[in-house]
């Protein structure tokens, strides 16, 4: 009964996927273009869309806060910092190690935030979010410092921040796809416990769940898949925040369904927005993160107003 909804959704996703292969900034439609240029790009949209949405679901579940996005622990500033670091050490932009550095840096920032918030083997949600803010602010300041001394890099960094599905290393794409897939599978298998987490950590302890251990597992999964997404597509905003909400409205709060719905929804969201991003001002291109923010922000506002008073 519920599976029907998902099968329909998967079907729609497949249709969108195929359709978008034929949408591009040019009138070229040969097999070459579709296979070598459009296909990797749409795959990137799927990977990043899945990863960011599911990471959003996990953070919102563990931290009991529907306003969390996957960058809350400093991931986006970490990635940005990595991009700047790459420039400083002269790493060739677009090389394999460039992407690795960004991903590692994103993950590193999250680790630091987690350890900052840890106190006597325990981590409180408020401390975690605060630590994320501190790390983000600090790293952003370092990035801006760099920019003030190297204005010519400003445009580059700003557009990295907005995110974009540019051609990337094929090996990296496959590695990211595998990691994201494993991450989502793990999250699905642990979704039952995530339901209990949303009742609060005390309740979770009462029900026999080792909360500190699970927190580490959840944060690791979420941070890892976010880092994968960010390393290949930059810091695309709003997907991780808005898609879980849309999914929750459609399939309810049970995390198993929520994770599946968010993965599918996130992929659809990015496939569509990227199709726009690469055709609207063709042959010019708008970074996809701008489209997601422009579409996401008003939509999120609408959701907030709709739910006014419900969440207190």
């Amino acid at each position, binding site marked *: 009964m519920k599976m029907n909804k998902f099968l329909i959704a998967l079907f729609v996703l497949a249709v969108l996927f195929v359709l978008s292969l034929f949408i591009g900034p040019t009138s070229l439609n040969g097999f070459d273009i579709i296979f070598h240029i459009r296909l990797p790009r749409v795959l990137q949209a799927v990977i990043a869309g899945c990863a960011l949405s599911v990471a959003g679901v996990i953070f919102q579940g563990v931290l*009991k*806060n*529907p306003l969390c996005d996957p960058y809350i622990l400093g991931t986006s500033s970490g990635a940005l910092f990595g991009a700047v670091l790459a420039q400083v050490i002269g790493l060739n932009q677009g090389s394999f190690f460039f992407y690795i550095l960004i991903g590692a840096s994103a993950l590193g920032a999250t680790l630091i935030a987690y350890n900052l918030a840890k106190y006597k083997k325990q981590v409180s949600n408020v401390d975690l979010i605060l630590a994320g803010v501190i790390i983000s602010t600090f790293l952003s300041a370092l990035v801006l410092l760099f920019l003030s001394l190297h204005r010519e890099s400003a445009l580059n960094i700003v557009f990295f921040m907005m995110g974009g599905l540019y051609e990337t290393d094929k090996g990296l794409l496959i590695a990211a796809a595998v990691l994201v897939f494993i991450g989502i599978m793990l999250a699905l298998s642990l979704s039952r416990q995530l339901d209990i987490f949303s*009742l609060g950590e005390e*309740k979770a302890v*009462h029900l*026999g*769940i080792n909360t500190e251990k699970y927190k580490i597992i959840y944060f690791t999964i979420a941070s890892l898949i976010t880092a994968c997404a960010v390393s290949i597509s930059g810091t695309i905003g709003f997907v991780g925040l808005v898609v879980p909400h849309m999914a929750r409205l459609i399939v*309810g709060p049970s995390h198993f369904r929520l994770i599946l719905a968010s993965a599918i929804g996130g992929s659809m969201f990015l496939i569509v927005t990227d199709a726009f991003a690469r055709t609207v001002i063709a042959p010019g291109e708008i970074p996809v993160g701008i489209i997601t923010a422009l579409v996401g922000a008003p939509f999120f506002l609408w959701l907030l107003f709709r739910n006014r008073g419900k969440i207190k």
Partner: protein
Amino acid sequence: MQIISAENIDFKYNGEKAINGIDFKINEADFLTILGPNGSGKSTLLKILARINDIQTGSLIVNGHYIESYESSEYAKFFSYVPGDIYTPYDFSVLEIVVMGRAPYLKWWEDYQKKDNLLAMETLESMRISHLAKRSINSLSSGEKQLVFIAQALVQNPGILVLDEPTSHLDIKYKMEIFGLLNKMREEKKITIIIASHDINLVSLYANKALLLNKGKQMFFGRAQDGLTADNISRTYEIEDTSKITAMFKL
């Protein structure tokens, strides 16, 4: 049969003693009430019992074993806890919430089975709230919500059920219903009930043991009828006019 034996329990928060020298023993199917003004250490003691706070000094033996020797899931199969107020940000259904109580019986990769859902429904039926099963938890009144979390605790199949101020914000109908239900559990299933409450009237009707706390110190422990006297209560709550208490609570 002795189910909890607490000896010389102290607990410090940041160097300050929250409770000092707590000592009591209760048996299976006892109905223990813990009374005391705010800040007297009731919640601290309950959190130690629930293993939210790690025991610091003294010894606490639950069902024959030291409390720190249990594995979390093992303890959760025996001990369940109902807080006074749970914030539920997401709209789970009542049945979904109640069946979460079966978590201690599942391995990490397992999902709830038919029998778990059945047990949850039976519990709801026995509490006469099965009509709420598909409703969203956030659409219920506070009284109904409290009953749901009691159902969740019962589905854990506990030997000990602890409740922290379960009726403070409820109307008389729910107060009576909950106390009646707890008593039924005690009589039928031999569940030991520990309840921290300000509802002295109701408590005096059902409790057979009482523990009175003030500023972390134990003012009294023993039979409820001995403990719940105007004298003891006024000393515990630091009230000067004992006559008023007698009148108020018909002690």
